[in-house]
């Protein structure tokens, strides 16, 4: 309960943020010219180009790795925040064992991130590999008529 009361300044800030957004939206509504909306006005602006196709397309799966990386760093940050909000890293009773825990923890996670950074370029569909597979398939097909006796 006391902790909740400590966060009341944060709530006041959140309220101010909401009020700011509402005031800005209202002000822009009051200030802007209210002209007739037509399809030209409401269409998506794409640097003067005609919009082609829907905006909601499925992105390549490779971008999924970036969000997993974000979650990993997020969780790592939460645990380091717990460490930074305590005094166990500089109280003599605990600092020698905790520093090893922190080093091992960081090494494991940094190793994982380094592995992903190393493997990420290989996981993208590379044009050269596609070309190689294509040439191989083409060569195999050229071989086929001779193997079958040819017509």
């Amino acid at each position, binding site marked *: 309960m006391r902790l909740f009361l400590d966060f009341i300044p944060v709530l006041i800030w959140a309220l101010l943020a909401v009020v700011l957004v509402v005031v800005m939206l209202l002000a822009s509504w009051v200030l802007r010219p209210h002209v007739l909306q037509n399809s030209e006005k409401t269409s998506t602006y794409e640097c003067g180009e005609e919009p082609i196709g829907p905006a909601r397309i499925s992105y390549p799966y490779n971008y999924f790795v970036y969000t997993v990386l974000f979650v990993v760093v*997020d969780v790592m940050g939460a645990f380091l925040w717990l460490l930074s909000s*305590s005094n166990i890293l500089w109280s003599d009773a605990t600092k020698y064992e905790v520093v090893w825990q922190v080093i091992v923890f960081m090494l494991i996670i940094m190793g994982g*991130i380094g592995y992903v950074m190393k493997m990420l370029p290989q996981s993208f569909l590379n044009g050269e590999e596609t070309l190689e597979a294509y040439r191989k398939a083409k060569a195999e097909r050229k071989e086929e008529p001779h193997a079958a006796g040819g017509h």
Partner: protein
Amino acid sequence: MQGFEGAFEQVEFLLIAGIVLVLAYLALEHKEIVYAAFFFGFMASFVAGFFLLLEAPFIAGMQIAVYTGGISALIIFAVLLLPRAQDSSLETFASKRKRRIGLMVAAIVAALSGILALLFPWAESFDETFVIISNDLNELALWLWANNGIYVQMIALIMVTSLVGAIALLKMDKAEQIGSIRGDFGIEAEPTIEEDESPVDEEPPAEEPEEVDA
């Protein structure tokens, strides 16, 4: 002062619970999936209010960092990666009877969890030492990092597992895409090779034509 704080706590709890229920309903039922994801994020950050009321600062911070930040980002990315469903059959119930059965099951689950919440001896089920630990960041850090460091290392290993799994999924996806260059953009499109009677795969070409032509 005690009486005021107690009443304030009750009001606070009911307010947060109401907001969480409304946001959870919106997150489930909103037609636009991106809005639903944002409502989920707001709901997760209001759940942190419960933990603040319970004086558990680490769980509250974890809730905001991981759920509002991480899981919401994960859901929004999932929306970006998946193709948009055109006509979803999940939106409506197949028949009135199925709708009634669904409502009945939901009511039974709500009633049972309500009974459990009222009957279960919550107050006696907690270990007093853990209550003290959860209220104090310093005590919690001592418990987690100094006394039970293996838990933190296990979390690190689980995180690494998720990274390796994501890379493995991508590699499998890539192998699948390379293997399926057939049809109009594959070797069948090559004019110098005479056509044979082998059946052409129905699946769409996975590669851009300019890379094949290069």
